[in-house]
């Protein structure tokens, strides 16, 4: 099997990349999706709030996904469902498998990686206690509840105040469960303020910041959860234990880009993002392999995933049409004080169209601060921010002429 472009993953990133590469002239495109339908995690995110940037209206996850799925079929782009990509290599060969074709080798001219991310688990933060039924990742519970129609519990404690945790607090409440508390390790919430108001405050669900789960009780099914205040070194403070009698613990403790395939192909990775190192066009360290969406870095707003993926799709089409990137001058980006990471990590300045978009997350909450962009130590751009938070990805667009040609390093810091 041969394709110009193979897109691995049919969620919002893969769909946008595939459609955009078609619009930019790529002929044969294949989207490979492991689930039984396209749309990815959006299909279980039935709440609204998606699409404000891309469609200028407020949509639910499935509505947002359906617009792209419809467009994909209007563009006659091939896709395979229920199909697993087992391996990709630097020569852009893909080993995939399903029940109909069996195991197949596919040769692509370009690959777009859009596998998304997975949830961190109980194990990744080593929560002590018993290991009974009733401990769920919030996203798994969301799938059971919203797509399959099952309740995962009746009295619920939620660890993690990221958006999935907050959204699930409301969903479980609407479906008749009692959510007792949302506990958060950090001294601030990782979720959007509107979600704290509309998902917690509306239903009088308390949020306890700087708290960890330090015990899970119950041998068969969860019978209780103990949370405890933690100090600045994340150590539990003795005497602050609160035990909740409950049957369920939902975990919303972070997302990790899913890059086993990328690593297998030998793509250079960034330990800060847990995603591939990418250039301005979203090309990875292997020429012709692009990556976009949550597989590169975890986004909080799907609209930004779409924009990034369109960018990657366009670049993949260009690559297939043999418009090669100009490798002559490579600028590295670096996250300085207050910044967790920057994507892209590398910029081929001659290949930037008119402006360069930098995406980043801050490490902590700031008020009335400034994001300062420096080229080899000299400030070339800055933007005032009344509010910065780790839960909200920041984007800075810089005009190409501001950067100049002979720059070695672009840095961003919070001032």
């Amino acid at each position, binding site marked *: 099997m041969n394709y110009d472009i193979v897109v691995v993953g049919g969620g919002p990133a893969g769909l946008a990349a595939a459609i955009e590469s078609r619009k930019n002239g790529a002929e044969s495109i294949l989207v490979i999706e492991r689930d039984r339908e396209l749309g990815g995690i959006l299909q279980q995110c039935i709440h609204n709030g998606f699409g404000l940037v891309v469609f200028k209206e407020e949509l639910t996850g499935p509505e947002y996904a359906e617009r792209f799925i419809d467009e994909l079929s209007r563009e006659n782009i091939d896709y395979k469902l229920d199909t697993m990509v087992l391996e990709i290599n630097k020569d852009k060969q893909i080993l995939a498998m399903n*029940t109909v*074709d069996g195991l197949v080798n596919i040769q692509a001219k370009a690959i777009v990686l859009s596998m998304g991310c*997975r949830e961190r688990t109980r194990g990744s933060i080593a929560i002590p206690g018993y290991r009974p039924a009733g401990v769920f990742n919030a996203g798994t519970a969301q799938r059971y509840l919203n797509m399959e129609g099952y309740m995962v519990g009746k009295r619920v404690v939620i660890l993690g105040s990221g958006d999935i945790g907050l959204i699930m607090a409301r969903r479980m409440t609407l479906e008749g469960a009692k959510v007792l508390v949302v506990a958060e390790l950090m001294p601030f919430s990782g979720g959007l303020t509107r979600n704290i108001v509309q998902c917690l405050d509306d239903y009088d669900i308390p949020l306890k910041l700087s708290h960890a789960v330090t015990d899970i009780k119950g041998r068969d099914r969860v019978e209780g959860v103990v949370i405890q205040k933690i100090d600045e070194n994340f150590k539990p403070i003795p005497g602050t234990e609160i035990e909740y009698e409950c049957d369920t613990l939902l975990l919303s403790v972070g997302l990790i880009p899913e890059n086993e395939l990328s690593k297998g192909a030998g793509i250079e990775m960034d330990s800060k993002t847990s995603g591939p190192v990418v250039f301005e066009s979203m090309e990875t360290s292997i020429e012709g392999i692009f990556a976009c969406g949550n597989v590169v870095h975890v986004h909080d707003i799907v609209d930004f995933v779409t924009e990034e993926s369109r960018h990657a799709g366009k670049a993949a089409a260009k690559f297939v049409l043999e418009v090669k990137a100009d490798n002559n001058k490579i600028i590295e980006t670096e996250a300085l004080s207050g910044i967790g990471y920057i994507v892209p990590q590398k910029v081929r300045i001659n290949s930037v169209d008119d402006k360069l978009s930098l995406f980043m997350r801050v490490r902590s909450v700031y008020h009335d601060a400034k994001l300062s962009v420096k080229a080899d130590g000299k400030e070339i751009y800055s933007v005032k921010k009344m509010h910065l938070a780790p839960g909200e990805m920041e984007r800075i667009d810089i005009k190409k002429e501001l950067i100049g040609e002979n720059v070695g390093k672009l840095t961003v810091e919070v001032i």
Partner: protein
Amino acid sequence: MYNVAIIGAGVIGTAIARELSKFNHKIVILEKDNDVSNGSTKANSAIIHAGYDAPYNSLKGKMNARGNLIMGIVCSELNVPFERIGSLVIARSESDFETLKGLYENGMKLEIPGLEIIDVGKVMEMEPNLTEGVIGALYAPSAGIVEPWELAIAYCENAIDNGAELRINFAVREIQKKDGSYLIKSEEDQVEAKYIINAAGVYADKIYNMVADSEYKIIPRRGQYFLLDKEAGGLVKHVVFPCPNEMGKGTLVTPTIDGNILVGPDAEDLDMDMKESVNTTYNRLGNVKNLARNISDKIPYKLNITTFAGLRAEPDTDDFIIEESKQAKGFINVAGMKSPGLSSAPAIAEYVVTIIEEIDGSLDKKTDFNPLRRKRIKFEELTFEEKNELIQKDSRYGRIICRCEMITEGEIVDAIHRSAGGRTVNGIKRRTRPGSGRCQGGFCGPRVMEILARELSVPMEEVLMENRGSIILTGKTKVGG
């Protein structure tokens, strides 16, 4: 009426069942939990010890040496992965070094093959990630790693295929002595058997008390562990122990047969009424990290995928207790199976058969005993052609359910329908590993439940995680199906 009732379907009980199934004996295995291999067998260091550790004149010493020797044959018959990766006991002081010499001497008396005391240069060459300060080590090339629950499951499956019976959810509540037999009762059921083999792990003393005044006590000695992602694989290549102390062999670091890294255990004696306390605790997990620093200071805990605790069946008699009760004829204790219980299992099984032979006279050997367990297909390990051939025969092998461990629907369905098959989410996890990987069932959990519900013809809400009461879904939303 059965000839033999074995109480406890851990690795000891199932090994004995399989050994006895070579003879014309009507055997039943009684298990209190909802699956075999659910007690100490599912939560330990998963090591087949070389056998230099226990005193040469003890039962433990003899059983371990013999168990290790024949483990290879057993595992190949039962199609259970087993690898002799070798072990190192490292010395960090002169007194440690003296201990090593003692272990070496003891091992030589037990004829443990290939034992060698090696210098620091050789140690660091074999294991470059150890914390500095090692002065030497005892190297035992015959030590190995295995999946303990898979060994027990395989033993049980093979025993059943050779005529043994298994009753799960049979928690023994009462044993009545009758003339020449025992009546064994659970809440809902009862069986009668001529002989009882008490392989009830941490509960062995309690079971024994139902027929006699137990001469021994079994103390639940808890150990806690970290299991790291395969990405940490290669941190160590051998089983690496510190020098042993009075609480056991110490906190070790080892590869697992599946390529993960296991760190633990600590040792904590619990109260006698805490025989279900397999919970981990914040302080003790921290303690394991401290202790493991004696082995390596490069352990990447950020790659942790799960923590767990297991209970060792620590007898107050120190040695294994394998004998017919003097108070109750035909009641055979196989108790106190702390480490090296797993390593000794095949030898213990042989030994128990000789005890029964002694009581019962010569045993009648089956002519049609099949020592081989039907091969378990591990899809990921097949060649390209083999995979496609299999998918053509059964398309369910073309559908990956667990993306972390690359487990197909075909493998899961097979695990459900084998003898002693998996009927629960954790049961399937133990048999084919979906949910054992880095996402810990986040993605595949709902799919595995769907397959279990379909294959067992039960509603999704009745699919259990482990024991009765471990329901996963508490009901449906809305009206309708």
